[in-house]
């Protein structure tokens, strides 16, 4: 099955400016015939083009809320970042009651699953010989970026499923144990970003595993607020504590592990910079854990959020202060590490190679170097590629003449 495209171009709105092409961390956008085309084999669904497009021409794709109706028993999986979207929210239970009022039969907080992932990670870091520094796999865009362009770091990835998947797995297990027929259960993750929509669609929805669909926080926001406004006194339904909700912003995962020697950073440029350092081996033995998130300020910075990430972060901090529930443990849910560890190691992508055959790739790269000598090296973007090098590679891969308006003007 072809992977879902979670970011698409609205060609009518695209004016062919080079903003998104410049910001794309994987050089996966070209301007062709005046429109910003996405090269999906290099796209990691990070949403940076959605964030940077001034005209709203890059549209995120997610499942329609109508899909929820087709299941007799509906479970919502709200991510921690959802709780930061509401003004004056002083109790997370309003959000949970709101989701129930929207028609869900059950709400399973992803923050609770995050606490369990933390417990598992602690055990793995104590017991197993994981390569240090261990790299967090909570942000799927970071994992995709490593599998695309930083293969040398793949054996540092924490081999544990992200909290959304664990939440789905556990919610389904518990519902089935309560006697609900497995086929009746529809589980829906409410996502803050296209990267999670993509990864869960590829691994879960298209393989008919635990998650039935992935919704967008921005899409359900107004209908949820409407329901929340009608709630007088919410019941105490939430099980997630301060540790789990912290995962949605600033280094929450590292903080919850209780490690001293860790690095965390967020935002596309920062992540790329840190990955380069890691790939040069500069942090071997220099840190135990590295947590990276492609969005500014962590998941609250994802493009499917409604609120400004820094405002949301402050709200979540205030909320976390009120959530004095100690972190959940694997033991209290009768689970062990096997529930969390990857069934298989993900394959690195070869999309970045110029050819599968090394000799052919070399011939192509020699030609790239020849073309680079003719190009001005100013990366102006006028040809429709983000850099002169990308243009040279495109011409080598796809044929055609070098197409550069500055070629004669700028002499090297």
């Amino acid at each position, binding site marked *: 099955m072809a992977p879902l495209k979670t970011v698409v171009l609205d060609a009518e709105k695209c004016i062919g400016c080079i903003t998104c092409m410049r910001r794309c961390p994987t050089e996966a956008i070209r301007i062709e015939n005046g429109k910003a085309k996405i090269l999906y084999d290099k796209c990691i669904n990070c949403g940076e083009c959605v964030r940077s497009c001034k005209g709203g021409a890059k549209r995120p794709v997610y499942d329609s809320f109508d899909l929820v109706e087709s299941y007799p028993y509906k479970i919502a999986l709200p991510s921690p970042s959802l709780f930061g979207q509401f003004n004056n929210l002083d109790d997370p239970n309003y959000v949970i009651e709101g989701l129930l009022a929207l028609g869900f039969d059950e709400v399973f907080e992803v923050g609770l699953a995050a606490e369990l992932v933390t417990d598992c990670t602690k055990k793995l870091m104590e017991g197993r010989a994981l390569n240090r520094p261990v790299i967090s796999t909570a942000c799927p865009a970071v994992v995709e970026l490593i599998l695309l362009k930083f293969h040398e770091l*793949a054996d540092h990835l924490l081999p544990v499923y992200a909290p959304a998947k664990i939440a789905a797995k556990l919610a389904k297990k518990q519902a089935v144990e309560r006697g609900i027929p497995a086929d009746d259960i529809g589980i829906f993750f409410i996502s803050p970003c296209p990267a999670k929509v993509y990864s869960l669609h590829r691994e879960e929805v298209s393989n008919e595993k635990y998650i039935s669909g992935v919704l967008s926080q921005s899409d359900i926001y107004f209908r949820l607020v409407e329901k929340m406004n009608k709630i007088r006194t919410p019941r105490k339904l939430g099980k997630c504590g301060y540790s789990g909700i912290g995962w949605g912003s600033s280094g929450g995962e590292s903080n919850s592990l209780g490690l001293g020697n860790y690095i965390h950073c967020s935002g596309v440029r920062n992540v790329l910079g840190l990955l380069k350092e890691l790939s040069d*081996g500069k942090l071997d033995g220099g840190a135990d854990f590295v947590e990276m998130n492609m969005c500014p300020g962590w998941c609250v910075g994802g493009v499917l959020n409604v609120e400004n990430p820094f405002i949301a972060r402050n709200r979540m901090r205030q909320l976390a202060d009120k959530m004095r529930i100690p972190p959940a443990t694997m033991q209290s849910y009768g689970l062990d590490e096997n529930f969390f560890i990857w069934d298989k190691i993900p394959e690195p992508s070869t999309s970045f190679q110029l050819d*599968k055959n090394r000799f052919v790739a*070399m011939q192509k790269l020699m030609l790239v170097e020849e073309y680079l000598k003719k190009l001005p090296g100013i990366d102006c973007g006028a040809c429709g590629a983000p850099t002169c090098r990308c243009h040279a590679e495109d011409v080598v891969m796809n044929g055609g003449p070098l197409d550069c308006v500055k070629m004669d003007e700028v002499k090297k």
Partner: protein
Amino acid sequence: MNECIRLEYDVDGENFASAGHASESVKRTLKQMGVSSLSVRRVAIAMYEGEINMVIHAHGGRAVAEIYPDHIDIRLEDHGPGIADISLAMQAGYSTATENIRSLGFGAGMGLPNMKKYSDDMQIESTVGEGTTVKLRVDFEE
């Protein structure tokens, strides 16, 4: 195939932050060739150490990489002070770096030893007062 991909770089001696530019660019080419990640990592570390050495000790220099299907030859040339005793310089932990350099986290005396560790062959030619040339060869896996 006797042809190779030849890449040349000036290593700026004034700027620590720009050290690693040459190894970064070589790394991109190796990855696009499909060279294994273990080999890419060995080349990156050996070459980065060489670049840093040129910045710390020699006010920069020149890096030339010749990439063949099965290996890479790297030549790092500088016109710095030269190395008086090469066997001493090869000892792990020996460094002539200043306190200022050490305070930046460099000068641990692991540069040359690491270049040797991560390469398959290493030759150093050095004349005091004239400069140093380090030649590295890294064979690719498979």
